[in-house]
């Protein structure tokens, strides 16, 4: 393209190259972005308002729908908010099960998004592998919870039902299979692929200072060598009982972020094995009385957990009635999807736009809510 040609492109809201129903309006000079503006709102379903109209327990069926890629973090953070305001103690076995579920969810989310990233640079085989591998994890979820994508399993006071010993055995088998068969293939097809290295190394760089300034967390921050992970910094569920490392990168580029996703999955496998080995016996649900009449005292709490894309938080307010007074969702990718797009995309070439958008793990329903 002639370098003096100016073009305006509406990218999305329906396009296989954008992460969900969300658009970005670009202006190009030649093939270089000169300005970018997030065009959000296409996915706004009024979750926060709906939550105010439903009793506490009903919302557990609503919240997972806020992020399709990682529904379980919503259930967890909602339950944690409820328990923080109500000062409810969760049985230890439930804590362990929650951590197992969250780590399984982390693996399925990462493998799915690594596939998405690969598709962004034309490696469609890896995308199909990612989707396939995710399906094995969804099978496990189906066995535990009865549902594949939205599980509605973690609920205030614990989890919905116990996990059988034979399911634990299946999870361990799957972890072995992932580690010994799926991931080595992925390594060869993607991480040793010169094409992928060339497309990702040194692209879409966000420095440590920039990340902290805008509130970006997770792989975006960790790609700069800082091991900031809420599982370590503010342990929740059973994370204080397990040993694991927080993977980091050093250049802050797309390559480092995607490698962190891969290393994160290996750590998750390690965590799941430890948890299953030492899970205590006992109940999985605290007695909170009639589910339709849950009530917690007046109060508020900001709770947050480490999703695969960073800090995921809820600010919850209770006025002592049967329904929440206010729930505010802080999505992990909100600062990147709205502010980051405008600040960091200019100067990028058109072919690198998918690298940028996908490697940051932008999930539009989090800021459309």
């Amino acid at each position, binding site marked *: 393209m002639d370098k003096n040609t100016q073009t305006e492109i509406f990218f999305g809201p329906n396009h296989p190259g954008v992460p969900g129903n969300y658009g970005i309006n670009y202006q190009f000079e030649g093939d270089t972005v000169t300005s970018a503006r997030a065009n959000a709102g296409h996915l706004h379903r009024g979750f926060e*308002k709906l939550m105010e109209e439903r009793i506490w327990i009903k919302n557990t069926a609503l919240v997972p729908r806020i992020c399709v890629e990682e529904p379980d973090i919503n259930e967890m953070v909602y339950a944690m908010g409820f328990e923080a305001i109500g000062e409810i103690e969760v049985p230890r076995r439930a804590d362990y099960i929650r951590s197992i579920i969250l780590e399984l969810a982390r693996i399925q989310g990462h493998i799915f998004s690594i596939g998405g990233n690969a598709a962004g640079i034309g490696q469609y085989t890896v995308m199909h592998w990612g989707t396939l591998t995710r399906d094995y994890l969804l099978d496990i979820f189906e066995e535990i919870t009865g549902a594949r994508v939205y599980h509605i399993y973690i609920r205030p006071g614990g989890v919905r039902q116990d996990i059988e010993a034979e399911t634990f055995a299946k999870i361990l088998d799957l972890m072995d299979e992932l580690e010994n068969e799926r991931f080595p293939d992925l390594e060869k097809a993607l991480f040793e692929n010169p094409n992928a290295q060339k497309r990702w190394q040194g692209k879409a760089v966000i420095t440590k200072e920039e990340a902290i300034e805008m509130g970006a967390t997770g792989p975006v921050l960790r790609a700069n060598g800082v091991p900031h992970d809420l599982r370590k910094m503010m342990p929740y569920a059973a994370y204080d009982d397990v040993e694991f490392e927080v993977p980091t990168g050093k250049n802050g580029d797309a390559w480092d972020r995607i490698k962190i996703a891969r290393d994160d999955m290996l750590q998750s496998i390690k965590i799941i094995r430890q948890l299953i080995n030492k899970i205590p016996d006992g109940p999985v649900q605290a007695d909170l009385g009639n589910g339709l009449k849950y009530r917690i005292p007046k109060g508020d709490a900001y709770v947050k957990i480490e999703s695969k894309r960073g800090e995921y938080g809820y600010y919850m307010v209770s006025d002592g009635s049967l329904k929440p*007074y*206010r729930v505010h969702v802080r999505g992990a990718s909100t600062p990147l999807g709205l502010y980051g797009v405008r600040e960091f995309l200019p100067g990028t070439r058109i072919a690198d736009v998918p690298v940028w958008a996908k490697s940051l793990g932008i999930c539009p329903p989090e800021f459309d809510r």
Partner: protein
Amino acid sequence: MRNEKDLLQLMNAHFNPLKLEIKREQNVSLEFEKEELIQALSFLKSHSYKHLSTISCVDWLEEGEFELVYHLFSYTDLINISLKTRIEREPGIFQTAKEIWPVAEFYERDIHDFFGVKFKGNDNLEELILENWQEIPPMRKDFDTRKFVNDKFEWRDYNGQKHTD
């Protein structure tokens, strides 16, 4: 590295908070007069509280007030602070925090969309999520979702069954 008590002492020494509270481990909540809040934010930012998680708004209809809550986190103290302030519901104007955290511009636009709060100094308050919204801001407590839906959309009958609201 400070603990929760050191932090409360530090804030007490420099400001006049209305309320200080250790919510639970690693979680602190502070309430300020609206005149003091922005100063407190920039003070905390220079004391390692560099991470702004988000800004929340709560509509307290009966008291006629909006509550703005700024959630900060420090990577050295590992403490989460919620800074709260209340502003009058009418006219609902507050100061922007965009000079301290540029990203706040978008959180403020979000609050402007859904609560109608205006932020002085943030001159880019155009619609972010909503489009051509004519009603009162939808997250306000006096916005009636059911009425809005009934006025705006038509109910459809399924298999001869009349819809009843």
